[in-house]
């Protein structure tokens, strides 16, 4: 491999390359785009959760001012299903029959000259329903239960024998509510047809998925569809799938023959783009008096929509986090008349970790053992299911360095023993073993005669820092200053990229970018291989280094020349190369590919008279492999922690048990963490490059969130002696 001499491009704190666009309001999000002749759409929703549409009267809407079309299941053309994707089957194609499967289901789309006219006309649509009794409760005996939905249930050793051998057994029922992703950007679609070709601006985390889905649904070639998402107003999973409103906007644009914009309302964001489903979890942990785990059972029960899928293996974390000989994990899903759940930052892990890490805290308390010591005692050096060493694992350093930074040794283990004036003080911690995820990705790199580089891939930067870290990585790989590199993304005409999700994009894209850059250097060496004027004549890729815009023979900086000189002498304007990455195979390398690891240390304050809970401090120690930019990676962890504080203390989507209507679908009613709720935080990165891929990264988008809820709950127990097994932790639970 080509030697990289100037590693300064990667590492500490480059400001985001897109910062000037974002602080000046010039970054254009999907709903900032318009076209001449643009018209506007509004949606009509079901006000029942189950049944059929007996009749739908659109006459008043159709004659309202400015209205250009009202489309319902009666007037919509037959559309095809979306394709199978990495995330499973596509959501059901809308408007194909009269059935109602959940409250808030889109049942009509109105197109008018202005948004005001469209909204008003939508309010005029009258619907006659044949109602059925909705299934809304995971415990409803009439509901269909799907056993082992992903084939990931696990059973090792003999759990009965393990519990029989235990001196102490802890556990119980843990519950987590529905949470709603609620990215601040209202998810929006602007669709413009030109004959059979289509341009779509969409709040997506995966432009190629939008392109493939629209091609399948509308039976047009993918080559005629361009999906653009240069900036997306967050996602947290809500933009992973091609939801029905995207298809409806494209359909409306075709129907009226004009570009159409649809901006979801905040209430629609609760019913249209997925959510973290509720969970009911039974967990039991057995251990010897010395603190060795002898058995774990963890059963997860989650809700899912009637006719859609969601990947949410809640109990899996208990199978892969600790060295325990006897472990059984099981998941079930219950089909209900609810909007379809979908991934929300840290899917499954966010719920499962709360139960596992809370139960371990109970165990530590029962044993009179320090919670950090208990985790170290049961540390797994190998992947418990694969029996292979991890490609990297610095979780031990997370525990130790995090505890040191936090001042964990000052913790008096007796609950209620630490005070600050009227406030009870609690210290709590939790560990995280985040799963590895990586899928194939492509990128293209070009070097121009002026010595600048363009690198691109159809990925998205949903706030993750992708623009910035890929600029840095490209600069490093090509030996250029970052100011000479332009990295671009968010356009389905660029090389294929997978979703910004599963904490998997940085490694997938980084390795594709790395491959493209290495191939590009090879192209340059190929150009000069017989060039008598080149000091690089005949050099092989593993004999050269790059730095300062030049390729030179390794160890001999004088024996080289600049990219510009090579291109100029050979009359070339530029050279380009493609690169691709594929996921590392666990068995191939004799190791288990590792995701990120982390340890969270939280200090809470509880007012015992008023039940007030405040998070006072958080220290996160993270093994994220190689960190490409400490500034943006720290922001990922801090942001994840804020999401975790929301999960722990505030967030709960409330569904009316009678009607299935979401009763708090606004930012006034669905509470998220605000500035005053969030303390300053410390983030430390430990470990080093992961061995599984050349770039050595591990994704850090989700490990920041997972573990926070358990750490807060454990700190609450330490402060008050109360074990809270139900999220969010609210005042009524602390009085």
């Amino acid at each position, binding site marked *: 491999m080509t030697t990289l001499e100037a590693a300064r491009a990667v590492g500490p704190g480059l400001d985001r*390359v897109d910062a000037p666009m974002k602080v000046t309001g010039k970054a254009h999000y999907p709903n900032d785009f318009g076209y001449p002749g643009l018209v506007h759409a509004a949606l009509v929703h079901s006000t029942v959760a189950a049944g059929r549409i007996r009749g739908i009267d659109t006459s008043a809407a159709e004659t309202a001012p400015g209205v250009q079309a009202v489309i319902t299941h009666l007037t919509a053309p037959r559309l095809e299903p979306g394709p199978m994707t990495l995330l499973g089957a596509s959501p059901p194609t809308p408007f194909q029959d009269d059935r109602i499967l959940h409250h808030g289901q889109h049942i009509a789309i109105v197109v008018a000259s202005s*948004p*005001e006219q469209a909204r008003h006309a939508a309010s005029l649509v009258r619907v006659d329903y044949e109602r059925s009794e909705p299934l809304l409760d995971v415990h409803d005996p009439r509901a269909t239960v799907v056993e082992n939905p992903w084939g990931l249930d696990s059973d090792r050793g003999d759990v009965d024998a393990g519990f029989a051998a235990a001196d102490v057994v802890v556990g119980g029922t843990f519950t987590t509510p529905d949470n709603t992703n609620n990215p601040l950007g*209202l998810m929006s679609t602007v669709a413009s047809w030109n004959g059979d070709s289509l341009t779509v601006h969409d709040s997506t985390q995966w432009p190629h998925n939008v392109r493939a889905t629209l091609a399948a649904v509308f039976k047009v070639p993918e080559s005629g569809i361009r999906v653009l998402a240069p900036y997306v107003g967050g996602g*947290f999973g809500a933009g992973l799938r091609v939801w029905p409103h995207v298809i409806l906007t494209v359909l409306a644009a075709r129907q009226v023959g004009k570009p159409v914009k649809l901006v979801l309302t*905040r209430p629609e964001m609760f019913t249209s783009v997925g959510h973290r489903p509720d969970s009911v979890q039974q967990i039991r942990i057995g251990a010897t008096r010395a603190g060795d785990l002898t058995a774990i059972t963890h059963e997860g029960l989650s809700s899912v929509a009637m006719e859609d899928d969601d990947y949410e293996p809640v109990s899996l974390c208990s199978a892969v986090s600790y060295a325990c000989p006897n472990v059984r994990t099981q998941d079930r899903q219950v089909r209900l008349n609810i909007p379809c759940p979908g991934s929300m930052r840290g899917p499954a892990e966010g719920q499962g970790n709360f139960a596992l890490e809370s139960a371990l805290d109970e165990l530590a308390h029962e044993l009179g053992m320090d919670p950090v010591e208990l985790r170290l005692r049961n540390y797994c050096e190998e992947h418990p299911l694969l029996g292979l060493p991890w490609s990297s694992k610095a979780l031990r350093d997370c525990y130790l360095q995090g505890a040191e930074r936090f001042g964990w040794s000052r913790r008096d283990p007796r609950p209620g023993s630490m005070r600050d004036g009227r406030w009870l003080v609690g210290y709590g911690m939790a560990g995280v073993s985040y799963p590895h995820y990586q899928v194939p990705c492509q990128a293209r790199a070009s070097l121009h005669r002026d010595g600048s580089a363009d690198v691109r891939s159809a990925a998205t930067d949903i*706030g993750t820092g992708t623009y910035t870290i890929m600029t840095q990585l490209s600069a490093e790989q090509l030996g250029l200053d970052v100011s000479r590199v332009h990295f671009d993304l968010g356009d389905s005409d660029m090389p294929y990229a997978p979703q910004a999700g599963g904490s998997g994009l940085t490694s997938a894209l980084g390795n594709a970018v790395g491959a493209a850059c290495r191939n590009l250097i090879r192209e340059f060496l190929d150009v000069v291989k017989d060039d008598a004027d080149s000091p690089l004549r005949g050099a092989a890729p593993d004999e050269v280094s790059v730095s300062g815009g030049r390729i030179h023979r390794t160890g001999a900086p004088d024996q080289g020349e600049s990219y510009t000189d090579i291109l100029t002498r050979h009359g070339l304007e530029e050279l380009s190369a493609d690169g691709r990455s594929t996921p590392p195979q666990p068995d191939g390398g004799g190791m288990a590919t590792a995701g990120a690891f982390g340890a969270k240390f939280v200090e809470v304050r509880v007012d015992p008279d008023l039940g007030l809970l405040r998070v006072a401090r958080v220290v996160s120690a993270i093994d994220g492999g190689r960190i490409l930019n400490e500034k943006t990676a720290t922001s990922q962890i801090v942001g994840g922690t804020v999401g975790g504080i929301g999960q722990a203390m505030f967030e709960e989507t409330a569904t009316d048990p009678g009607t299935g209507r979401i009763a708090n679908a606004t*930012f006034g009613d669905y509470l998220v963490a605000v500035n005053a709720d*969030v303390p300053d935080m410390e983030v430390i990165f430990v470990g080093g490059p992961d061995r599984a891929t050349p770039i050595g990264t591990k994704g850090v988008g989700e490990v920041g969130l997972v573990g926070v809820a358990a750490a807060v709950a454990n700190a609450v127990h330490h402060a008050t002696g109360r074990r809270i097994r139900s999220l969010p932790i609210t005042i009524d639970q602390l009085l």
Partner: protein
Amino acid sequence: MPRNRGAMTQVDAAGATSTGAAPEVPQVEVTLTVNDTEHHLRLDSRVTLLDALRDHLGLTGAKKGCDQGACGACTVMADGKRVVACLALAAQYEGRRITTIEGLAPNGELHPMQAAFARHDAFQCGYCTPGQIMSAVSLVAEGRAGSEEDIREFMSGNLCRCGAYPNIRAAIRDALAEG
């Protein structure tokens, strides 16, 4: 820096998206002074200040995050005071001086608060950022950024779902220190 790209046009300042509503929709004449430029608009009376800026004047910096006055993404200044533009009808702002993120600093330059936000990584997706910056600038101008507690409290009307709050506070402290 990433470029905006593609064949699309942004909503143009001539109001390309307002296609002349049918006569039965009440229209209002509104004069708004936005970033020191006077605009005469004929609008559907239901148009909010936010939609007037975004859809009719092509100033898309102010963002729509809830349309219910609960998230602060649409924060602009009217005569130097913060307003959530989604809860204001454009017609109510006849003759008022509106400042948006686009008017905070001359083109090509950054206001000290904008520079501080960039330096401190006080955003991630960037969607709430124009509103956060407008609130932060107002906070300082109003003399309400005197303590850490004040900053935390008075910035709590601007939601950031990416969770950049600690960095937002650091940026405001830094901009304050710069004077």
